[in-house]
């Protein structure tokens, strides 16, 4: 084993758990987190008393010590948080792996809980909601003063601008974005837990959905979801003693790229090139650490707050050339029988928006062979987290 990347294959995800995904949970985030955590711990064949570390997201209202208390852990020896927001989940796994490898914890609970529809709706812009009608915005390193006063308020507007750049530079079309939305919806239709499980979508439906921020339509946007997801990260030895097939964590990586400016979200519009994202740098690190490349990936769960988010990552993770993401997406490659099936539970677009944490659970199901859209013989799964500020990714693999 390479001494340089000595976390390779040393840890595994031994348990997964989630709540239902809804638009109005009627429960607080701590209740949602507690339900998902208990489910994940039971799935791992453990009791809460055996959890000694916790990782949460920087966007979560529930902190590590809160969930520890809630599920009855006597004492946690390790906790931490990472972010930013949707960029967190795979980095949270990385943090847990680091803790286990370093001997700081044995069984680490990693969770994300939010009322993304009945509570704070990220899609409407968090800065304006948090300012609660304040007359003046920005300052203190937020740089919001350069964006909000101009009506630049929500993530979808920024992704619309990025998509338009990609269209202008490379000839990408709305038809290509539709291909991504349709794949996610078809996988969600097979997944009874998905918010869109009963909602079929045709290409015509996509094009007749209302424009939100041109060129992005309603079906280019992800769900807004109330719910929680959790996993248990532990050593492969302990995972192999558990009741479930271990999903080995081949490698983890985070990456900022060289132009991760200060400021909240919209600062990413200052990147030298909008069509190359932090995922390009993260992919290099991840593949190097894994000793694997894109051709070794059997199935992928791409973070998908918007359809163009997936398109850019197809390029950045090396599944096609830069600029060819649209044509690749429309080639059929992303279908269940294609060369790279993606987002097999429906993703943020159609399963639910647990801020990318649900992508990790689906990655584990593919490795276990229990997905509702199982890729036959899947041995490896790439899972990515959000862009455009920073990002993170992991590769899961079967014990083989």
């Amino acid at each position, binding site marked *: 084993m390479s001494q340089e990347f000595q976390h390779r294959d040393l840890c595994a995800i031994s348990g997964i758990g989630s709540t239902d995904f809804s638009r109005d949970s009627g429960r607080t985030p701590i209740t949602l987190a507690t339900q998902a955590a208990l489910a994940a711990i039971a799935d791992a064949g453990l009791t809460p008393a055996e959890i000694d570390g916790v990782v949460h997201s920087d966007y979560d209202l529930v902190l590590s010590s809160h969930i520890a208390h809630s599920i009855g852990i006597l004492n946690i020896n390790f906790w931490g948080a990472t972010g930013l927001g949707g960029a967190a989940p795979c980095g949270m796994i990385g943090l847990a792996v680091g803790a286990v490898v370093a001997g700081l914890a044995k069984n680490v609970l990693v969770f994300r809980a939010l009322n993304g529809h009945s509570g704070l709706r990220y899609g409407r812009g968090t800065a304006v909601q948090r300012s609660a009608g304040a007359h003046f915005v*920005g300052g203190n390193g937020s740089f919001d003063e*350069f964006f909000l*006063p101009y009506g630049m308020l929500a993530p979808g507007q920024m992704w619309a601008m990025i998509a338009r750049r990609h269209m202008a530079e490379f000839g990408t079309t709305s038809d290509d974005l539709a291909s991504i939305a349709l794949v996610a919806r078809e996988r969600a239709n097979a997944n009874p837990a998905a918010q869109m499980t009963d909602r079929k979508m045709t290409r015509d439906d996509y094009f007749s959905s209302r*424009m939100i921020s041109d060129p992005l339509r309603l079906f280019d946007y992800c769900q807004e979801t109330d719910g929680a997801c959790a996993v248990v990260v532990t050593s492969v030895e302990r995972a192999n003693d558990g009741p479930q097939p271990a999903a080995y964590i081949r490698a983890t990586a985070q990456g900022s790229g060289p132009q991760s400016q200060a400021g909240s979200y919209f600062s990413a519009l*200052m990147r030298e090139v909008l069509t190359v994202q932090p995922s390009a740098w993260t992919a290099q690190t991840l593949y190097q650490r894994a000793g694997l490349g894109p051709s070794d990936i059997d199935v992928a769960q791409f973070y998908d707050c918007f359809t163009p988010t997936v398109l850019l990552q197809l390029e950045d993770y090396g599944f096609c050339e830069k600029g060819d993401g649209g044509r690749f997406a429309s080639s059929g490659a992303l279908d269940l029988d294609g060369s790279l099936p993606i987002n097999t539970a429906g993703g943020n677009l159609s399963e639910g928006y647990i801020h990318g944490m649900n992508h990790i659970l689906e990655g584990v199901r593919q490795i276990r062979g229990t997905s509702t859209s199982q890729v036959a013989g899947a041995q490896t799964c790439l899972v990515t987290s959000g862009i455009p500020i920073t990002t993170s990714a992991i590769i899961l693999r079967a014990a083989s």
Partner: protein
Amino acid sequence: MSTLNNAPLPFTDDLDTSGFWKAATEGKISIRTCAACETVLHLPKLYCHKCQSWETYWRDVRPTGTLYSWTVTVQQLHPAFPTPYTVVLVELDDAKDARLIGYLEGTPELKMGMAMRASFKDVEPGVTLVQWEPDLNS
């Protein structure tokens, strides 16, 4: 919550960014720039990450640029911004690494890379927004 009916205004007294807003009240665009290597330091910051210099200054640039991208927002996000409206991202002619945002009412005809010209809109005493529109004279 009565102020929600008003558009949010920029906080103009930030230690790192106030120079931009002061210049705007004088009808100018000023971009933080490294005195040693001329690297554009926008969003404004005091230290040059390229050449590790603290010698940085506000450089006045021409109020012209090109359209780098835009979006037409159709679904309302905030009562102060009736839809549809257009948000433009403009690359400055004199500071290519700086992009500024502008607001345009409705759905003006736009083309990628078209010439844009700044205007300066006083929105409150001491607060001026730099806005952008297609430069029909270029």
